[in-house]
């Protein structure tokens, strides 16, 4: 395997909690083994700010604002294989709990009744630097085409490892039952 070109991998967290990234790091010392076969592009582990041409893109989290949509499209464009990692990317996950609430109304209500707020300075953030929110938290497949789904909240480190080593070995990734069995 050594003579082969290293595969370039990008990872990103959209509206996620970083738990899927944590689980990725939970491959522990196998991380060093992985580094013999891959190199990182944009990822919370590097300072690359925009995803370049990549072989694999791992996306954690759904899309909750316009910026998430933008980054996600960039990933789709530049990654040959795009993977939805974890419940949030696959179906919105826990942040999608806000979907049954009316966003505008809820924001206003909470903003006015929030506990222990400085009432005189409970002003409404309004700045061009803040990305606009989507009405609902969206699974990423509603925005781009997804090639693989890795279930779990988060998927276990063993599942992520099996998935990646399958891909690296040129096989179609397959997770046996124990790796798809949760809690």
């Amino acid at each position, binding site marked *: 395997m050594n003579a082969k070109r290293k595969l370039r991998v990008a990872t990103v967290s959209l509206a996620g909690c970083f738990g899927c990234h944590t689980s990725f790091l939970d491959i522990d010392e196998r991380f*060093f083994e992985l580094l013999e076969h891959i190199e990182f592009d944009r990822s919370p582990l*590097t300072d690359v700010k925009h995803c370049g041409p990549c072989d694999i893109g791992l996306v954690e989290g759904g899309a909750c604002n316009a910026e998430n949509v933008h980054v996600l499209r960039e990933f789709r464009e530049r990654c040959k294989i795009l993977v939805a990692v974890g419940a949030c990317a696959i179906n919105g*996950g826990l*942040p999608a709990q806000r979907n049954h609430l009316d966003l*505008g109304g809820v924001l206003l209500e909470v903003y006015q009744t929030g506990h*222990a707020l*400085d009432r005189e*300075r409970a002003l*409404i953030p309004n700045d061009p630097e803040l990305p606009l929110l989507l*009405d609902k938290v969206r699974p990423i497949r509603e925005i781009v085409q997804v090639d693989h789904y890795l279930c779990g909240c988060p998927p276990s480190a063993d599942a992520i490892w099996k998935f990646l080593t399958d891909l690296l070995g040129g096989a179609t990734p397959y997770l046996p039952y124990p790796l798809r069995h949760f809690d």
Partner: protein
Amino acid sequence: MAHELETAAEPQKLRRIAIDPISRVEGHGKITLLMDDDGHVQQARLHIVEFRGFEKFVQGRPYWEAPVMVQRLCGICPVSHQIAAAKALDHVVGAVPPPPSAEKMRRLMHYGQIVQSHALHFFLLSSPDLLFGFDAELDRRNIVAVAERYPEVARRGVALRRWGQEVIRHTSGKRVHGTGAVPGGINKLLSASERDALLAEADQMISWSKAAVELAQKLAAANEREFAQFGFFRSSLMSLVRSDGGFEFYDGLLRGRDEEGAILFDGVRDQEYDKLITEEVKSWSYMKFPYLRARGREEGWYKVGPLARVQNCDFMPTPLAEAERRAFVAAAEGKINHAPLAYHWTRMIEMLHAAELIRELLDDPDLLRGETMGSGPRGRSGVGIIEAPRGTLIHHYEVGDDDLITMCNLIVSTTHNNQAMNEAVREVARRDLDGRRITEGLLNHVEVVIRAFDPCLSCATHALGKMPLILELVAPDGARIDRKVRNA
């Protein structure tokens, strides 16, 4: 001085530079700088650009769901949120304190969390800046390059993190988003084989933690002047301490010191936090700005986390960490050390302390047997405060007679540091960037100072309490469906 460079007079005339996203931190944030024609910085801001709404959507859910819901605020420190929520809800089920075995299991879990989170931050995220320099080429500033050049440092970091995660797995069932801490106690004791597996590596981990303190100290000493001045600002400090003034991660009383080290308040009970602290909102960030009511908006901000904790306590109750704390205090010559980069050194002292605490606790037979759940008179509300890896974490819930949550207020560690991080960014912008040609390496300086705080911008984006004035409905293809403009 506190709010200089926060807002430029005529922003439209200035050139905008954005560091977006801030990398090698957890969560979503960006920094914007506005420069005039002469290259002087006129405005510098740290923006938190996402919000998710946890405080709102846990309302209406049964209280026992809260610990497993709120831990999804943050996959780096889920244990902190789980335990803070469980502690708050101990008041609701009348189990204050929970049985000794339950408290000890929670403590063990929490100490594991400190080790894994501090190891992740120091070795995997920040060490490239410290080992290769702030201006190092972009492709060297990551753990991969550290693993090539300093394999032992990288391997120890990964091993320490693994051990901390294993402590969490054995106490909560899973490494990420387990279920160990529940309102009133815990749902799992430790087995003898789990204990032995953790004990087998304990001494090694303590000695590697000690070596990590020495490494952090050595890196600081090698560049003493720069470390002392970089991003320097003064502020007051806040953390929990034990009732005897000892260092504490899990449960204690709130203490604050002013910039000189004089006690501002002490012995404040967790249930009273809202008498002490209030939060301001600023238009340009989704993260609120807490401050001490007694000192007011301008003066009342403070910092939390390792640098605050290690200097706020009177002693650390384990021998190796206490020796390192003394060395740290001695190096500051009796003054409070406010240098942001000193966060790294104190963070490693804390990791050593947590490793020692784990070692000590693993010998306690209460982990293997005893009551797991307590109960008592039913309460309607509760506050849980712990010292999470990044600082003081506050959870507050009110629960109705139907067991459903009616109110939730969270002040997470990183939020307490909001003003402090903004200050540090402005300080670096003023000192390192002002009047110079801005290069990529120079921009990393600004990120280096943010990283020192180990911000978890993921945690900090939970709040649904502030809104943009313009609401747009955007279809998945990007087309705008609806747009509402709300006048303030």
